[in-house]
């Protein structure tokens, strides 16, 4: 491989990865724009993407302020959820009866309809950050717990037997084998949960908040401004994609060995 072709190859790979999704989104927007322009549909029913982007730019200060609140709620809620999921995953890994006792309870938390729960949580905890943290944690805790518990179970039996034969204690085996074995599962869970987390935060804000994309959307809806509703939706979609991308980068940094399998000498 010559040095001159290396950057070109990187560029080609990037295009290969980024090209198709960008083209798909562009095609969707072009079709939408064309439909709105040609059908003459009212902007208060279906605004064109160009109008949404223009309004988003006009409203950028307000959107940024509300986005910050949503990001904060997502981050705190997700951090709380991750800590709790990790703690409980370790507990149920060491005490099996606890797993049987707690899992039904955790599953029930997943069946609660957010529409019903969100206003109640706001009623209990007020309009501050706490109800958002609670709701984000509620929707992301269980997927993370299941991912971790499954990850521990995926530990290679031979590796566990080897460590036991070396005289390693149960705690040692957990740290040296079960925990690293769970990493791929953890990141798979993380990618799914981070998208739930943003939605959960917006839902909590929708039920009542001083600031946040949720309350922004509610106000825009009440003022018959679908363009602003959709502008906030664009922002939240972008936020989710960025967080998703961050988890992918984090996984690459945390698991450098995972991408080597296909490159043997």
């Amino acid at each position, binding site marked *: 491989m010559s040095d001159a072709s290396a950057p070109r190859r990187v560029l080609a790979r990037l295009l290969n990865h980024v090209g198709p999704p960008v083209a798909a989104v562009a095609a969707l927007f072009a079709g939408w724009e064309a439909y709105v322009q040609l059908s003459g549909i009212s902007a208060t029913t279906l605004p064109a993407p160009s109008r949404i982007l223009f309004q988003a730019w006009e409203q950028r200060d307000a959107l940024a302020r509300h986005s910050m609140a949503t990001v904060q709620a997502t981050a705190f809620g997700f951090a709380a959820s991750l800590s709790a999921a990790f703690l409980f995953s370790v507990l149920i890994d060491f005490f099996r009866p606890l797993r049987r006792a707690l899992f039904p309870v955790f599953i029930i938390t997943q069946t609660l309809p957010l529409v019903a729960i969100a206003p109640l949580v706001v009623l209990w905890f007020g309009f501050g950050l706490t109800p958002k943290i609670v709701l984000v944690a509620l929707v992301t805790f269980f997927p993370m717990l299941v991912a971790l518990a499954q990850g521990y179970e995926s530990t*290679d039996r*031979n590796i566990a037997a*080897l460590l036991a*034969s*070396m005289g390693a204690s149960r705690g040692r085996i957990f740290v040296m084998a079960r925990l690293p074995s769970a990493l791929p599962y953890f990141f798979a869970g993380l990618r799914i949960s981070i998208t739930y987390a943003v939605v959960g935060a917006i839902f909590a804000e929708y039920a009542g908040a001083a600031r946040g994309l949720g309350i922004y959307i509610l106000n825009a809806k009440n003022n018959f401004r679908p363009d602003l509703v959709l502008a906030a939706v664009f922002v939240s979609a972008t936020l989710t994609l960025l967080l998703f991308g961050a988890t992918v980068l984090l996984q690459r940094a945390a698991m450098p060995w995972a991408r080597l*399998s296909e490159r*043997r000498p």
Partner: protein
Amino acid sequence: MSPLRLELVNLRKRFGATEVLDDISLTVPRGEFVSILGPSGAGKSTILQLLTGATAPDAGEMLMDGQPLARDRHCFAFMPQGDALMPWRRMLDNATLGLEVQGVGRKAARARVAPLFAEFGLAGFEHHYPAQLSGGMRQRAALLRTVVQQRPMLLLDEPFGALDALTRAQMQRWLATMWTRHRWTVLLITHDVREAVLLSDRIYVLTSRPARVAHQFHLPFEHPRQGVGSPALGAIEADILQTLLNPKD
């Protein structure tokens, strides 16, 4: 001091209704390479589980250097089926695993392990991940991780079972050379007759479950053996196959 490193006397083991080991007695003298050969599912791995303490025998005795095996036994370095390398550790840190569990500091463990990489044909791969190495190299690394623990005895559980035939033959010859140089006391579990004949001083052939010792073979030949072409080895190989295939004779 007893010349016998390991002595198993009338071991019995059942799991629930399944009788796995009926009556197993065998000895491993110091510095000898001993193999246990048996059909699949005969209970070969159960013997290793008894030795490593993963499970306890129902009856019988296990003596190490003439003394009953202690509960906190640290006399075996175990090499499990497959290589059991940790995909997230570089080769150097995989090799130090046993030392780390023994409480040796990471830096000291690395210093003890690093000089051995050349002898095991792994020089230059210290900082590679297992996924970057071939099957044969991974097995050599697994053996390196085993011997570096400096236990009185090595337990090898079908170490080359997962390799392709050619790599396996290469690895068997390589192990024969390595063993001739170091004369470790080894107990090898295998179902590969040629492997056992090539490497062992003594072979115990087990019956199918419940396992007993069907026959014991002594192989007083020079090491390392070439494997092919020796009529004496060929005769023993045929003899063992006969024992395994016609258990009634």
